[in-house]
């Protein structure tokens, strides 16, 4: 593989002149990544019979501050792949930039070969593991959803910030791992061959519960539906929250 062919492989080298002692990354003593700063909330995704549904809210927080309330966190890479992540959004957008650059290269080559979701998932896993090994991780748990053209089936994978990459029918990032995953796993277990509308309903229910239970969340969300033809991102969905049960009155029998 040629270096110039895949610009994404050039992962932030600290020094171009490796003879220089002070600039050599091996001897660098200053810390770089300390923690996520501009953060996104949870991401939830479920595989259904003919595709995948992925959901995330549109809020980007800055600590306790709800800083950007109408920002996209779901990115379409090509007609077969979409990804979203929680955590540091700057890191996510950096990765998406690299992937978009590679996508552009693929279009210019014009040979009909495109990176599918499996390739992108694998690449992300390697990049995140590499960054963790260097001691400056990218603070994202990424959900990769798509349609695997070679095997003609939906693809759903997850990469943690330390580079643990796996494929599963139901996948969540962030606090949704504790609140959303059990709910979605049960839904999948009951009906693994659900259709698109049932999958969208499950995701919407999950996001509604998350919005009510997670502090840094909002009810303005985006949904991405992937099927064998294309990726469809539904923007600006407002979830209806029902706070009736919060009115706590004594129940007399």
């Amino acid at each position: 593989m040629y270096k110039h062919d895949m610009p994404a492989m050039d992962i932030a080298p600290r020094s171009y002149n490796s003879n220089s002692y002070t600039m050599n990354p091996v001897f660098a003593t200053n810390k770089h990544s300390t923690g996520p700063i501009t953060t996104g909330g949870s991401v939830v995704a479920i595989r259904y019979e003919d595709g995948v549904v992925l959901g995330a809210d549109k809020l980007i927080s800055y600590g306790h501050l709800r800083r950007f309330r109408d920002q996209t966190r779901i990115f379409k890479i090509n007609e077969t792949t979409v990804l979203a992540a929680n955590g540091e959004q700057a890191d996510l957008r950096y990765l998406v930039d690299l992937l978009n650059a590679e996508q552009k290269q693929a279009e210019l080559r014009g040979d009909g070969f495109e990176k599918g979701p499996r390739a992108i998932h694998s690449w992300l896993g390697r990049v995140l593991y590499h960054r963790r090994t260097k001691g400056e991780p990218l603070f994202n748990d990424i959900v990769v959803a798509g349609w695997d053209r070679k095997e003609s089936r939906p693809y759903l994978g997850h990469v943690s910030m330390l580079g643990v990459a796996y494929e599963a029918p139901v996948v969540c990032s962030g606090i949704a791992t504790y609140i959303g995953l059990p709910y979605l796993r049960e839904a999948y277990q009951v009906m693994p061959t659900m259709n698109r509308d049932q999958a969208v309903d499950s995701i919407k229910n999950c996001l509604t519960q998350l919005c009510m239970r997670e502090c840094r969340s909002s009810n303005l969300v985006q949904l991405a539906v992937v099927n064998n033809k294309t990726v469809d991102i539904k923007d600006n969905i407002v979830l209806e929250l029902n706070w009736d049960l919060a009115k706590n009155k004594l129940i007399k029998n």
Partner: protein
Amino acid sequence: MGLKHKPNVKTGTTIAGLIYKDGVVIGADTRATGGSIVQVKDCDKVHYIADNIYACGAGTAADLHQVANMISAQIRLHSLNTGRKPKVATAATMARRHLFKYQGYISAYLIFGGCDDDGSHIVCVDANGFTRVEKFTSQGSGSLAALSVLSTRFKLNLEREEAMNIVTDSIAAGILNDMGSGGIVNLCVITRDKTQYLKHHRVVSSKGVMGDY
């Protein structure tokens, strides 16, 4: 060298409870862990407080047993003194006063459930003494998993069967998705006239039986 001194036996746990049309349903799993080892596979986390009040507990097993026994004895004496059926609020208040005094060092997270002359109640008492009255609640390490089921399916004035199913499913979600919870679901259904303790209500998963993934 060798095995380190065993850490406290905790009930890493999923406990849950809700109020339905005729009373309350509370449930718990049966796993007690010491570190990463399962110390007891069939531990009873639904504690008797009074005939009409039961408490589920999460936290350190020893603390829970002692606190539950102590509250049960105090409630018995109180009820004999007053000549009245004991109230859930009384039991919860006794627990709260005791636990707050120890500033959280007694690691007992309790869900009191029962029916008394004021109606049906679920009261949650944390180890620090924080008390809340809820319509449905869960505690323990598997609490978020249980909450995901309870939040989505709870409605007011449920029927008995559905209420039992919801609590059982929420404990099952904790057993399947949380490593500190496991075993069998124990359920306790309390109404104004009757209390039914359903030990081993549902076996959620068995060793050697493979799931889908």
